[in-house]
């Protein structure tokens, strides 16, 4: 009996019980929804802010890239490619990008561009230098042959006249052209292109003098002792080319005579070139000193003025062949005093094919009759003082002998006898061989 009542009683209770949690859930859900809506509003605001911030970043980055492409890289190209001295590469546009990786990447682009330009330039320069060397080589060979031809013509017997004068003028132009080709090949990283035998300091000074235009303004104070010392063949041409450059500088910057002299020093020899021109200011002197100790190569984009080019040639030769050039010393005349130091190790011996120094006059055995004049009234050789023979003096066997006719004939007679004996010996040997 109680079952249905209980059920009836229970039924609403159960229903309530079932409804209540549902209500609670519903309320909670509503509240959650409200909270979520609030959160969404907040989140939306934040998102908008983030989006706005990101957009500003985006715009700034685009700006920065445009700035890189339109301003920074062109300025960089002006600087490193075109070599404009006043091209200033602008900095970044936006400061607030400083904390981002953007500036770093831009720097990487800049570095890469600089490297690329340097590499391309070096390759181009190498190719150009090789080309210059090849052409210079050919031109030098032809000019050297022209010089030999001129010497050959000047050496021919016959009357001297206008033809010889023309040859001499042509010789000067040829020699100057040869020097121009040499300085070009040296700046292109090559050697002077000519190997010489051991030569004296006098020959070096005189040779260098002949390679410039106004050679008659160079006054070489020749002293036989230092002037006749030998310089090693390997460095003769480099030293001569360097000295030529110093003489060219001295005569270019002064219209007065230029003095050259050689001296012995405790560690070697020095050749001094002094002019009385304007001289160099402190800046020019520093620049010259800098070029003189470097080993510069021809830079296609920076072929500087004449004097700098000369110092570059000298600096390169001095570096490669271990001599030293100094322009820092004050000159008595107010101009430039250039000093070329030749250390003792660059000095050499007289070449083997040099005619042996003749005995000094007092060693020559006196021949009969040398104290009296010859029948033709010619002066006779006589020992003269005790002058030491430093330079290779002449051998005393002159081609034109001044002995009297009788002794000349006797000499021929002896020669004939020698020949006759010689024939006899050859004949008998020949016969013995045939047997």
């Amino acid at each position, binding site marked *: 009996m109680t079952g249905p009542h209980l059920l009836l009683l229970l039924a609403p209770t159960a229903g309530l019980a079932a409804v209540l949690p549902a209500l609670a859930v519903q309320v909670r859900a509503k509240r959650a929804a409200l909270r979520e809506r609030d959160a969404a509003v907040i989140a939306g605001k934040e998102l908008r802010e983030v989006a706005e911030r990101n957009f500003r970043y985006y715009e700034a980055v685009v700006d920065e890239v445009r700035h890189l492409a339109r301003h920074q890289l062109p300025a960089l190209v002006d600087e490193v490619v075109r070599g404009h001295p006043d091209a200033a590469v602008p900095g970044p546009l936006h400061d607030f990008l400083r904390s981002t990786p953007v500036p770093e990447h831009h720097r990487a682009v800049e570095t890469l561009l600089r490297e690329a330009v340097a590499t391309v330039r070096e390759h181009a320069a190498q190719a150009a230098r090789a080309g210059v060397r090849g052409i210079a080589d050919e031109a030098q060979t032809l000019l050297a042959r022209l010089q030999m031809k001129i010497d050959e013509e000047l050496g021919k017997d016959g009357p001297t006249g206008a033809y010889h004068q023309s040859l001499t003028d042509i*010789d000067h132009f040829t020699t100057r052209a040869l020097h121009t080709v040499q300085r070009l090949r040296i700046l292109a990283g090559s050697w002077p292109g000519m190997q*010489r035998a051991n030569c004296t300091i006098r020959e070096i000074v005189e040779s260098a003098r002949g390679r410039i235009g106004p050679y008659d303004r160079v006054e070489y104070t*020749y002293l036989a002792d230092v002037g006749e010392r030998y310089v090693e063949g390997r460095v003769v041409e480099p030293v001569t080319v360097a000295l030529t450059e110093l003489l060219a500088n001295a005569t270019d910057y002064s219209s007065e005579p230029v003095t050259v002299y050689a001296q012995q020093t405790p560690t070697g020899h020095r050749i001094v070139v002094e002019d009385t021109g304007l001289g160099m200011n402190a800046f020019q002197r520093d620049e010259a000193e800098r070029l003189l100790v470097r080993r510069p190569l021809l830079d296609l984009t920076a072929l500087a003025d004449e004097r700098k080019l000369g110092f570059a040639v000298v600096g390169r030769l001095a570096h490669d062949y271990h001599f030293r050039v100094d322009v820092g010393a004050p000159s008595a005349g107010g101009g430039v005093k250039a000093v070329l130091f030749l250390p003792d190790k660059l000095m050499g011996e007289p070449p083997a094919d040099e005619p042996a120094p003749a005995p000094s006059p007092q060693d020559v055995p006196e021949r009969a009759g040398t104290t009296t004049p010859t029948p*033709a009234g010619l002066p006779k050789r006589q020992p003269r003082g005790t002058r030491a023979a430093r330079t290779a003096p002449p051998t005393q066997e002159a*081609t034109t002998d001044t002995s009297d006719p009788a002794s000349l004939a006797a000499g021929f007679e002896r020669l*004939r006898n020698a020949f006759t004996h010689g024939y006899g010996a050859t004949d008998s040997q020949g016969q013995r061989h045939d047997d």
Partner: protein
Amino acid sequence: MTRRSHRRRGMVRSYTATGGRAIPSRATLDEATLLKADPKLPMAGLNAQSHRVMDLCRAGVLSVAEVAAHLQMPGAVTKVIVSALVDSGHLVAVAPFVPAAQKHDREFLKKVLRGLQSI
């Protein structure tokens, strides 16, 4: 001419010694002219090549050809240098002595030539 001395020969160009003059001031000089130095005149102020010519001739009488050989300079250039020294009185030029007392036998000279050629 050996290669070595050739590499030395072209070093000093002839015009540096003559100041660009190619025609000697004296036409009377030839290769065989004998040169005698005047020891009294000072050598100061002479250029290097003239200095050397004086050094060569002070040691004894030399011909123009011999001086040229010692200077390693063409004969024409040597004549210019020597002429200037004769002008300044540093050198005295004397015509070469040719012995006239005895004519040489032509046949004999031919024999000498043949002998020389067969050496």
